[in-house]
């Protein structure tokens, strides 16, 4: 039977676990195993990597024999826009300041909703920006610039 079609969850999980386990095991070899009496920095990670590889392998094997539940709908658009909005915020917050970074985050993220309306999103962006500047920047003294260094010499 075809594991990707019939049990993608087990198959993919297994592949991810084995991949991470192998990478971690290889990296751990450089850290020094030590001995059981005097555990080196590589000792515990090596045990864990081995465990993860075994668990992943079982999951892969299982996917060939047992069918699982389908993956279901994946919110690609939501995933992409939420990630992009967050990264964008991180990239511009220091340089452009909250006044640009917050509306950018809200607008990009809002696009992820199926009910997106420009009017609503702009109002949200304005409201959130004012609220956050008042509460976090002025109220709690979070060290984020309202207007960033790109605009101030």
């Amino acid at each position: 039977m075809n594991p990707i079609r019939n049990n993608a969850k087990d198959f993919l999980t297994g592949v991810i676990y084995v991949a991470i386990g192998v990478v971690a095991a290889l990296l751990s070899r450089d850290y020094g195993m030590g001995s059981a009496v005097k555990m080196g920095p590589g000792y515990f990670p090596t045990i864990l990597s081995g465990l993860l590889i075994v668990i992943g392998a079982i999951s892969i094997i299982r996917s060939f024999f047992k069918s699982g539940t389908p993956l279901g709908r994946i919110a690609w658009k939501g995933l992409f826009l939420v990630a992009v909005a967050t990264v964008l915020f991180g990239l511009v917050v220091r340089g452009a300041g909250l006044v640009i970074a917050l509306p950018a985050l809200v607008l990009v993220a809002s696009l992820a909703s199926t009910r997106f309306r420009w009017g609503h999103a702009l109002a949200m962006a304005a409201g959130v920006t004012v609220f956050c500047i008042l509460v976090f920047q002025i109220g709690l003294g979070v060290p984020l610039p309202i207007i960033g260094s790109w605009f101030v010499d």
Partner: protein
Amino acid sequence: MELIANLGLGLSTAMTPLNLLYCLAGVFLGTLIGVLPGLGPTATIAMLLPVTFSLPPVSSLIMLAGIYYGSQYGGSTTSILVNVPGEAASVVTALDGYQMARKGRAGVALATAAIGSFFAGTVATVVLALFAPPLAEIALKFGPAEFFSLMVLGLLASLVLARGSLLHATGMVVLGLLLGLVGADITTGTQRFTFGMARLSDGIGFVVVAMGMFGLAEIVRNLEDEDDRSLIVKKVSNLMPTKEDWKRMVAPILRGTAIGSVLGILPGSGSILGSFAAYAIEKKVSKHSAEFGSGAIEGVAAPESANNAGAQTSFIPMLTLGIPSNPVMALMIGAMIIQGIQPGPSVISEQPALFWGIIVSMWIGNLFLVVLNLPLVGMWVRMVSVPYQFLFPAILVFCGIGVFSLNNTEFDVFVMAIFGVVGYIFVKLDCEPAPMLLAFILGPMMEEYLRRALLLSRGDPMILIQRPISAVMLGLGVLAIVVASLPMFYKKREEAFQGD
């Protein structure tokens, strides 16, 4: 009486105006996020952690605790009014609570939930005050082997309640332990898994991981289908239970409180297990069992008492052993560490004001909750139907600012984004994030205890089963896994999480 003196100390700590204010803020926020769609206590506490770092430790823990048990109240409100449980622990409340609401008895259902919760909260406070100190006393005698095994037990127990595949959840635990090791090794200073990035040498911040996996990933999951919540009750009136109602709710509240208190102490449990068990048992023993599922008041009273009792007694392992029983407790432990308090059995003796202050604040918080919930229920009802498209950008903004302000670096914001994506992928693959977060917190501690245990035994791993307490804990852990993988239990678990 020592207990009275201790509670007196707690009272004087919790009753300072500042702490009362933070307690009120905590339970208010807790109720709010319990009512709002798509925002749980784990994400909220993670978002607020950066804000609390500037507070005194007692105040911040009082507030964070308030958010947790407050969210149990809020969660039951949505269960009853819209048949959408705000929290996993309120799933069973929806069964009968929603039916009561459909019959025009929403007010009575809400009142029953509040009364049951308040009573349970009061009892659980006493249980906590009575049982935590002796437990800590015992734990003070634990050696590294016992602590290692205790952590293994905690992690294995967390698997029992994990949704989805048991095998996948086990992998998540191991993955969490590995992630916890990123950064400089405590003993040798060796940089592990940092890929040469200096920012990673202190490890990955657990707040960053929690916000990514519980905040961002949850948003994406909610965006899969944006349902409108329709309120069947526009206005809640007539809160007062009838004489008959009072008579019928007494025994379920008592039983629910007892079940919830006991199950809440178990590692890996918290409030969820108690509410399910209380409902199931009540259905068996009740004289009115035929009415269950069509609006039996017992079906609201028992699980609501149980989940609130459990939410509070789940602080016992956290405060006495330093072992988190759920992700919220893991975040509380993180909050303590950042405040410079080493969680574990010595907290009670070294920080008595903190310990007793938190306990007494829970009782005060429960009082606030009754006052907040019943008269203000009209306001909460309106909150239930806030459209998600307005909510999630705001959540994202709070996560962004919060994570940035942790270390004042955009690096953490990027790491959070990565964990958001990773978290969503894992959710789609039936890999529960909660056990991973617990393991992430425990990873470095487990390594250290294992290292010391093996040093004492001259490298013989058998020390873990030769020491009786350690052996018992490992045995219990194995038992938990065996029970969880029994087909019978497995099916029940699947049912329990249906519609959640």
